[in-house]
């Protein structure tokens, strides 16, 4: 049997996460050198269309199902089908994107197939048939080279680590329907609903991130409403004004709003915005740190960003050590000025 790489296409409500195409594209490049085929598995709604797109990005065949049991993500039915397909087709490797879903599925499939997982991979080197993966550990303070000692080799690929995939609409391939491996009554969970969290936070795949730290909270020129008597209340109010300002810069850039742990712990912004070792590890094209001193845990979470800009009043702040561009000054003046300039340039 010709060797193959199986790729799981991560999707939500019929829309693929862009990271899925990165993974297909990486699999395609690896397969090209060895004559292997790439098979993309798309489960959920809109699976045939997504399967076609997967072929455009480098898959040779798409395996698809719109079965109702896949409409909402649940790990058990998907992992069971993945494992069944892998047992039938004996792929060399199974690739996922490092998403909440990809990580979980990779883990479960590895148990079924008695293999190992290399999670959150940022580089792949081929040594014969063996894939040697580079992955950050200790939130990127160290790098580990790792390999699976059995087959299939199961990898999850970090979002944005492998470059932009290119769609080629002239590519064609077979789209094959697959049947679910679990019946609804064999699944112990049910998805009841979804809730959105306030504001748009998709730090993982954002090309631009603007983050605020504690420094954002102490604008001396702001007078909190007179009815606020409690000091903590005043502090939170000031911080929220500060984060609104940082958010406006993020919005002007079409980017996402991030925050330091100090700002999250102080209650200024929800945890979903936290960048760092106990938050999200990010790697955008542009990272602007506003009023962030740069604790080691924060630096670990953003140091691989392509261009880092630091705006801080303290010239000794450690954040300047990793910054490409630094501005020492009053962030409450510089940030609005930058927002204004960028908006004007966008408009022209």
């Amino acid at each position, binding site marked *: 049997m010709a060797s193959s790489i199986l790729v799981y296409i991560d999707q*939500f409500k019929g829309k693929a996460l862009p990271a899925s195409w990165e993974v297909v594209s990486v699999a395609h490049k690896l397969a090209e050198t060895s004559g292997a085929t790439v098979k993309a598995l798309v489960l959920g709604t809109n699976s045939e269309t997504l399967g076609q797109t997967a072929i455009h990005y480098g898959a040779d065949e798409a395996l698809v199902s719109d079965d109702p049991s896949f409409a909402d*993500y649940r790990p*058990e039915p998907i*992992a069971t089908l993945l494992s069944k397909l892998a047992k039938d087709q004996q792929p060399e490797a199974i690739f996922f994107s490092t998403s*909440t879903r990809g*990580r*979980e*599925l*990779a*883990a*479960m499939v*590895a*148990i*079924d197939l*008695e293999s*190992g*997982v290399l999670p*959150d991979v940022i580089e792949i080197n081929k040594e014969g048939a063996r894939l040697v993966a580079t992955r950050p*550990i*200790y*939130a990127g*303070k*160290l*790098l*580990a*080279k*790792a*390999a699976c*000692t059995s087959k299939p080799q199961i990898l999850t690929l970090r979002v944005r680590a492998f470059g932009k995939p290119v769609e080629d609409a002239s590519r064609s391939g077979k789209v094959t329907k697959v049947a679910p491996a679990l019946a609804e009554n064999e699944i*112990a969970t049910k*998805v009841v609903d*979804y*809730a959105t*969290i306030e504001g748009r936070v*998709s730090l993982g795949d954002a090309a*631009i991130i603007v983050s605020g730290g504690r420094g954002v909270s102490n604008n001396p020129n702001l007078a909190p409403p007179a009815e606020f008597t409690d000091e903590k209340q005043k502090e939170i109010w000031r911080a929220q004004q500060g984060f609104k300002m940082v958010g406006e810069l993020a919005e002007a850039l079409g980017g996402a709003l991030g925050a330091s742990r100090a700002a999250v712990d102080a209650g200024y912004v929800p*945890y*979903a915005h*936290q960048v760092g*070792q*106990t938050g999200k590890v990010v790697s955008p094209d*542009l990272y602007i740190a506003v009023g962030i001193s740069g604790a080691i845990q924060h630096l670990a979470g953003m*140091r*691989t960003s392509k*261009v880092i*800009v630091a705006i801080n009043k303290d010239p000794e702040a450690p954040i300047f*050590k990793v*910054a*490409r*561009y*630094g*501005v020492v000054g*009053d962030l409450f003046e*510089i940030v609005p*000025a*930058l927002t*204004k*300039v*960028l908006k004007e*340039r966008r408009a022209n």
Partner: protein
Amino acid sequence: MKIAVFVKQVPDSAAKMTVEGGVVHWGDAPLVINPWDEYAVEAALWLAEKYGGEVTALSLGDEGAKEALKHALAMGCAQAILISDPALSAPDASATARVLVAAAKKLGQLDLAIFGKQAIDTDTGLTTPMAARLLGWPSLTLVAAVTQLDAGAKSIRVERGIEEGRQIVESKLPAVLSIVKDFGEPRYPSFMGIRKASKAEIPIWSLADLGISTPESKVSWPQISSPPPRAATSELITGASSEEIANKLADKLITEGVL
């Protein structure tokens, strides 16, 4: 309810990590309970208080891991067990999951097995779903809230943190949960708790006690290294006014091609 919470001892997140001769060092930084696991302990205790039950903390590691367990005891866990065996050196996630699952089975009659989101050292986040798969229980990862639980009817409703917001899931019990920070700030150990923990006898279970042979790791780590230093050709942007600084910075960013 019978709840097990699994914790790991790791170098403090403030540690500066270095590698010498392939061996990882963390300088004089202390070893602490994995920060994510504190949220797991908090969730376990909160659930036990709200819905009735008792929490056992377990850790896989050497003698030093007793400190992580003592922290869990001081927070309020009823008992703690250390799983330790010289045959287990640097197990991968799947081997770890196999050992922890054997311990969960030895405890018996569990309703919930609770983990942190991931460990801040190896950063895999794989152990929870692996344990769920081995136990054959539902995997409820990244739980931000438990909104309903019926121990009698063996059902639970959770909110999971996903890329798109929150997914609300109903599940049968027993189940395996991993907890994220939104669940709520972990409580500080009380004075009484610390005293109790310092006196606690922590039993040690070996692989023989668990009735399993050494599980095989499926991943090898041929090399660990420090990342290449960031070429920080740092450039300070200055100007007579904020507008001038903003314009200069915008020019630079356009030249870098990141806008």
